[in-house]
């Protein structure tokens, strides 16, 4: 069973071994509205924690998606190129954006677990 962690910028990362699968949370997609385009990172790109990894564009705004941990991008979700709305319908499952090879597992400790993230959302509301 994979562990899922969350960032303050509303990304989630699901950890299996040294691979993290990254996407934006259901709350984030709800705030953005209908997504029309997603710019995914290139496979092989080295990202530092907090670096801009992807761009999600809705009808009204464009926002950055940041890397929750440092590492190399190993795979991107090509399905989003033809169907960005997948992030709206399945933000935390089929709407994943990229996989990253986690360079420093200790960075995960600073991220939130699901309970803390739910707390954060309550504070925002």
């Amino acid at each position, binding site marked *: 069973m994979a562990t899922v962690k969350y960032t303050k910028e509303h990304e989630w990362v699901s950890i299996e071994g040294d691979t993290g699968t990254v996407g934006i949370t259901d709350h984030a997609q709800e705030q953005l509205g209908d997504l029309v*385009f997603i*710019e995914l990172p290139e496979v092989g790109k080295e990202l530092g924690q907090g670096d801009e990894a992807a761009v999600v*564009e*809705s009808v*009204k*705004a*464009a926002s*950055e998606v940041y890397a929750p941990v440092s590492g190399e991008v190993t795979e991107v979700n090509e399905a989003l190129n033809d169907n960005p709305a997948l992030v709206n319908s399945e933000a935390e499952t089929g709407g994943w954006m990229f996989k990253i090879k986690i360079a420093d597992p200790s960075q995960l400790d600073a991220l939130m677990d699901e309970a803390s993230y739910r707390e954060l959302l309550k504070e925002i509301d």
Partner: protein
Amino acid sequence: MRYLPLTADDRREMLAAIGAASVDDLYRDVPKAARLDGPVDLPPHAGEMEVDRALSAMAAKNLPAAVAPSFLGAGIYRHHVPAAVDHLIQRGEFLTAYTPYQPEVSQGTLQYLFEFQTQVAMLTGSDVANASMYDGATSCAEAVMMACRITKRRKAVISGSLHPHYHDVTATSAKFFGVNLVSPGPDFAGTEDLAALIDGDTACVVVQNPDFFGRVRDFTALSEACQAAGALLVVVVTEMVSLGLIKSPGEMGADIVAAEGQSLGNAMNFGGPTVGVMTTRQKYLRQLPGRLVGETADADGRRGYVLTLSTREQHIRRDKATSNICTNSGLCALAFTIHLTLLGEVGFKRLAGLNHAAAVKLAGRLTGIEGVELLNDTYFNEFTLKLAKPAADVVEDLAGKGVFAGVPVSRLLPNAEGVENLLLVAVTETNTAEEMDRLVSGLEEVLR
């Protein structure tokens, strides 16, 4: 009646608030040599009639290129603009409107910009065009920055046959975006090998067609070399009328086209304002700067126009925008569109044909003069002559005879070697047989 809204007390109060001792104090960062230390030496005020008379007398000393026999080109061309163009663009809805920030209420503006984009895309052989830029030179600079974003590379190879002003504007932008420009230097011999300068860090190669010296080129092979190296080909066009006769940049494999649209619908305007044109491939649409108009249908299924993909732009995307341009040359673009619409496809091709035919005729006569050599092996409506005397002097002498013979290459490339005797001569449908006679006889006299 006072026209100045501020009293001396107002001024004192404002200066005190910001801690300046005097109004002059506000200009202390301007070098002293550039400052005026006292009032301008002018006669005392005069009545409206006297002022009008004095200024009219001064204006009468000018020799306007719109009236005199003019063979000036080098990026700005004298073409006939039908009277209907000027009449239509002066409608208040067009003339006084600023770029639409609440765009959908301005359906007329959006519709003509959509037509403009369509015409531009067709002329350049491109998938998509934006709603225009400031001018050809800024389009060129934006094209280089765009290529750098797409390829994530930081070097641009600039042809030595690119208009020197375009090169300068691009260099200014490049300096602040950390882009490295590489150029083999002025190429009046037409022998540069740009493909040899492409490496793994090259974002794009920038060329011009017809080039600065008037040569008509085919960049298909260069486009293939770019593609093989993962670089983009940017093709600049400064005389869009040429596209009625020659292969379009799109057909040669251009990835981005940056052009000057002044030739259609717009007067020479002392070099500006004009209208910048920018196009690209569909796949690079999201990296294209500037405004984009799209056609859609409203809730009742009726045709309507919208500003689209605005998330690329500064007012939404802030510092991550594709460019700081948030406007376009709306009125000049409208003039372009009306002129081209009046010409139609057949008329536009005929216009291009007339230009080339006039150039062929004049080139034939000029090369018959002793001391005149034609450098071009190809040209559209502009070519480079090598004269027996310095071109700048010849142009001065002919201006004394009321004829604008052309643009000396040394004026635009002041530091280049071997250009002193080179003269750029442009011919359009506006040059009559009599004008050509005056140029030929004038040149014969000056070179004798």
